[in-house]
């Protein structure tokens, strides 16, 4: 669906055109996890990519990082095609795409100090990276965190460290793949806002993937809704919220529970297909 791309068309930082990722399954037909997705990311923009489990949003994010080979279509970053990551180092140009993963317990190296992990990322910064203390300050952590190890921190703190590390590499595109899903509800909005602010200060665009629409609404300029590998709707956040076009988007929005104290049960709208 080409209308899904939408948004600013001039000087796109990242373009995804007709991306298809399919997995072979023994004894069954191939599964098209991403099924012809078009997406554009302009400089400095925050795009929320939402959808339910298995809609292909994480697979798409991994493909953008080169972690998943495309079956068809193309992903370009500043005019350079993104090729799947092999054994060799990523080309320098593509190192400007950085990712923050869902589980900070798995994405940080348990055997290295926080400083060592952030220093590693600073090495690939194209110019001068802020020093470790500054990076930690950006994510509201004290400088003495640097000498400690991941196991000494809570989930929320680890995710802050993961964000600091991603920003240390001087990214132009920051991808958050469900970065708040494993955190306490009271932390989710905070970490999401922090990630947006940090990306903005670093001059990076943010592709924020989440199934939590309430949080996406808070930080995204544009929202892209995926279902079964396809983009069903895309547009400015306010418009998607006030006037969703696709029945699937309406169903997603109706299902969000509201903390209004009134005991309103969320709606389950039926889909026709």
């Amino acid at each position, binding site marked *: 669906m080409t209308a899904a791309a939408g948004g600013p068309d001039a000087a796109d930082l990242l373009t995804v055109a007709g991306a298809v990722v399919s997995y072979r399954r023994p004894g069954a037909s191939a599964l098209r996890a991403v099924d012809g997705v078009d997406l554009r990311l302009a400089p400095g923009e925050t795009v929320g990519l939402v959808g*339910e*489990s298995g809609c292909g949003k994480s697979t798409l994010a991994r493909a953008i990082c080169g972690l998943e080979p495309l079956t068809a279509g193309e992903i370009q970053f500043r005019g350079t095609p993104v090729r799947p990551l092999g054994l060799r180092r990523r080309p320098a140009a593509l190192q400007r795409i950085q990712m923050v993963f869902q589980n900070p317990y798995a994405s940080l190296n348990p055997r290295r100090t926080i400083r060592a992990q952030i220093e590693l990322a600073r090495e690939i910064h194209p110019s001068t990276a802020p020093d470790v203390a500054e990076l930690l300050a950006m994510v*509201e*952590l*004290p400088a003495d965190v640097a000498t400690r190890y991941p*196991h*000494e*921190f*809570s*989930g*929320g*703190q680890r995710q802050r460290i993961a964000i600091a590390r991603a920003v240390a590499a001087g990214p132009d595109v920051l991808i958050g793949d469900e970065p708040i899903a494993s955190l*306490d*509800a*009271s*932390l*989710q*909005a*905070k970490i*999401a806002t922090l990630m947006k602010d940090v990306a903005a200060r670093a001059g990076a665009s943010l592709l924020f993937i989440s*199934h*939590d*629409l*309430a*949080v996406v*609404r*808070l930080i995204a300029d544009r929202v892209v809704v995926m279902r079964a590998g396809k983009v069903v709707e895309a547009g400015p956040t306010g418009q998607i919220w006030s006037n969703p076009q696709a029945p699937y988007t309406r*169903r*997603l929005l*109706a*299902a*969000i*529970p*509201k*903390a*209004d*104290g*009134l*005991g*309103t*049960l*969320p*709606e*389950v709208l039926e889909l026709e297909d």
Partner: protein
Amino acid sequence: MSESQQFPGAPIDLDKGVVTVSPATATSSTAAPACATDGIRISGLRLKIGTAQILDGVDLVAPAGQVTGVAGESGSGKTMTGMTILGLQPPTAQVSGSIRYDDRELVGLRERELNKLRGKHIAAIFQDPTASLHPMLSIGTQLTDHVRHHLKLSRREARERATELLEKVRVPEPRAALGKYPHQFSGGQLQRVAIASALACDPRMLIADEPTTALDVTVQAGILRLLRGLCDDLGIGIILVTHDLAVMSSLADTIAVMRHGKVVEFGSRYDVIRTPQHPYTRSLIDSLPDHQGVR
């Protein structure tokens, strides 16, 4: 305390440093409502593992026919409270205080006596149905085994009952579902199966620990509606443990907010969400993405 000894539920957390008020200054009344027959009444519940005080005097009343919410962040003791009601606290834990179920005291009850209550009077569902159901037993077996034990039904009667239960929780094609295994269901369907299993012996209380946290919003909406229906139609008392205040606001009638092993605020859903008295509760509400819309 060295870092390695730290209890995982109580991490050093700078994110929570904003609240400085002592949890001992519990606001609102933690006292019991007047009519609390047929339910669970917890008072002064304390639980200690080694030197860590996990529960530090929990008071909570969960009447039948109502949804009693227990909110709080990781490590607040909300899950441990639910597990202790079931007598499923870690074996090394030292428990004191009182958990009354009708006129029975559950703290210190012998395993044999507990087994008569668990499943039959007090049932539970957990966050991850793929972990709470046995992967190698068919749904039919998992829905009939405890029924035959507790209700002394025959195999055929138990299967009939299982089919009805799956209908009640709206699992499609219930009869065929009995022959299937957990991996053949989606997460939402599996949670429905887990709920059916919990309901099988007509329990009067259901402990639902983060029942929708692992599910998509649309699936969550369906499960919340199902739980509300069970409470309203069957008069089951539900203790809903969740960190998600939006879910809490949708389903709970009364809400207890826990922090550091204590209930810091307890009141009606509307009061706790709309006019929180304790600063900690207020900070939880303020951290919600849509709190501006509520004020």
